[in-house]
């Protein structure tokens, strides 16, 4: 957060070292399972951070962000199909895929961003459904059969490790952009919109323009992520890349960590991915999802501003009472 600037040097170095450690991790030959798991964590960190640009900073809760992810996946897959791209070309084609997603966001966002609160949430959800249904029913893009992509002709360990590195880079870039926005005038404008849009506008904040920009940016990164993910999966189907649960997961992760700060979604994504993985390993799927649903409720009731602020408050309260931070865990 803004107040913790001076002492954030130490953690910064820690983060850099952690990222470097993560980057070399796959080359020590760990089981593919761990690489895949961390890949998923990075994917969600990227998605949640991107969502946060419009959902967290500006308070426009989008329940349809998976649409941009799916559009990116399909755009990259179609580019590969039509131009018969090589491995490198396919990876690079995720960037135009991101641009496509951002362009769609501008077109959709222009009318939709005039709606607020629940109306915006509903229309974005609807948008995701519409895109999903449309792609399912259009035979040109594979329809309900999905699309097959050429796999990388590398052994699975290597190809997984390559995708891992790519996703790591994308995640770091997304988080950096998100942090940059958070500390900029742009971010301040978005926060003003969240507080009170009318007041913000009278204070010379160009709300529609800021919102469109934030929305496009927050669609751009999921678009790229979708493109990479398509290549990672090598088979894409509307039910997979337009799964509404992804949308909901993104929202939950960002809110769990705390939507106001750039760090929140990163932590939320890490914690919830871990919880999800543990739950689905140890309990029945239905039960896991029941626990997951309960988590939604608990988070909103007890930590409306996210876990970071919640912990901060706990620490403050305990140090005020005992003068120590022993209970801060």
């Amino acid at each position, binding site marked *: 957060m803004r107040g913790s600037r001076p002492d954030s040097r130490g953690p910064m170095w820690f983060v850099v070292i952690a990222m470097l450690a993560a980057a070399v991790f796959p080359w020590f030959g760990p089981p593919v399972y761990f690489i895949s798991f961390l890949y998923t964590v990075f994917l969600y960190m990227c998605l949640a951070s991107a969502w946060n640009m419009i959902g967290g900073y500006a*308070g426009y*809760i989008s329940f349809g962000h998976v649409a941009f992810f799916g559009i990116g996946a399909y755009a990259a897959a179609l580019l590969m199909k039509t131009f018969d791209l090589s491995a490198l070309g396919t990876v690079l084609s995720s960037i135009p895929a991101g641009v496509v997603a951002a362009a769609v966001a501008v077109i959709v966002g222009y*009318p*939709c961003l*005039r*709606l607020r*609160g*629940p*109306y915006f*949430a*509903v*229309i974005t959800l*609807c*948008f995701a*459904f*519409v895109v999903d*249904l*449309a792609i*399912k*029913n259009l035979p040109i893009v594979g329809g309900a059969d999905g699309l097959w992509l050429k796999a990388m002709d590398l052994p699975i360990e290597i190809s997984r490790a390559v995708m891992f590195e790519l996703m790591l880079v994308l995640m770091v870039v997304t988080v950096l952009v998100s942090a940059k926005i958070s500390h900029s005038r742009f971010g301040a404008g978005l926060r003003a919109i969240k507080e009170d849009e009318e007041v913000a506008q009278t204070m010379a904040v160009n709300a529609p323009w800021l919102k469109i920009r934030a929305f496009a940016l927050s669609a751009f990164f999921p678009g790229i992520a979708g493109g990479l993910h398509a290549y990672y999966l090598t088979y894409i189907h509307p039910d997979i890349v337009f799964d*509404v649960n992804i949308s*909901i997961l993104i*929202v*939950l992760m960002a*809110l769990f960590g705390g939507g106001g700060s750039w760090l929140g979604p990163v932590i939320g994504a890490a914690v919830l991915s871990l919880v999800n993985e543990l739950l689905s390993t140890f309990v*029945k799927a*239905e*039960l896991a*999802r*029941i626990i*997951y*649903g*309960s*988590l*939604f*409720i608990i988070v*909103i*009731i007890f930590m*409306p501003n996210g876990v970071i602020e919640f912990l901060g408050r706990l620490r403050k309260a305990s140090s005020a009472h005992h003068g120590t931070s022993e209970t801060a865990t």
Partner: protein
Amino acid sequence: MGAVYALLGVGFSLTWGVMRVINISHAAFGLLGAFIAYTVLKRWGIDPVVTMVFTVPFLFVAACLIYRLVISPVARAKEVMVSSMIITFGLAIILENLILLVWGADPRLLTTSYTSKCFVLGSFYFQYSPLIGFAMAMVGVAAIYVFLKMTYTGKAVRAAWQQPDAAQLYGINLKRISMITFGLAVASAGAGGLGMALLYSFEPTSHNLWLVHLFLVVIVGGVGNVLGTAAAGLTLGLITGFSLAVLPYQWVNLVTFGLLMVILLIRPQGLFQSEV
């Protein structure tokens, strides 16, 4: 069919209008009612319409408890709508998976003694199930309307919706009224879900699709507007019926979603209301 949407929509509209709570789990509760009716029918052969006698009160009590536990803590928050949406999203996931756990993922059909029987009137064939669903829904909507207009509690609900602060000044217990509204809405969802089950097959994930229709009905009808919601429900029934006749099946939902988006953009306050 449209009438059943109306019955489902009325409760949804009430919680939205009165309490500013958007209950994503509304349709899931309806689905729960349908599954209970299914089991009762299978095990004891009791007609689904009769089952309502106990599912509706049961859902009412359950909803009041849920209100106390999870909704009232956020009812005072600044952004009730968004936080309530996320909470009830959680509820919907819990309900869906409870149903999955108990009943499994197979699609179900309520097969009663009168399913697929019909009577002939002139040159028209009338099936019994839709007619029963229609009648049930009409009675339900009418009952809610009468309750709101005629009884003291109903008037208090409307007062709380129009002027929450003033209503409180006049000695209306807002918390209690909200609880009753929520309970009533969920109970009516139970009846509506049963109505849907009479017409279509259902499975644990059906509530998502029902929910989109609910949004459509409520937004078109005007939030909190019982008669508008009923009218919108009937219209939606006609539109889906018509698009089923002219379009391939998989495009029908696309029409519904598209319609909802367009209406949201043009008239978010609803077609039957001049201003919010």
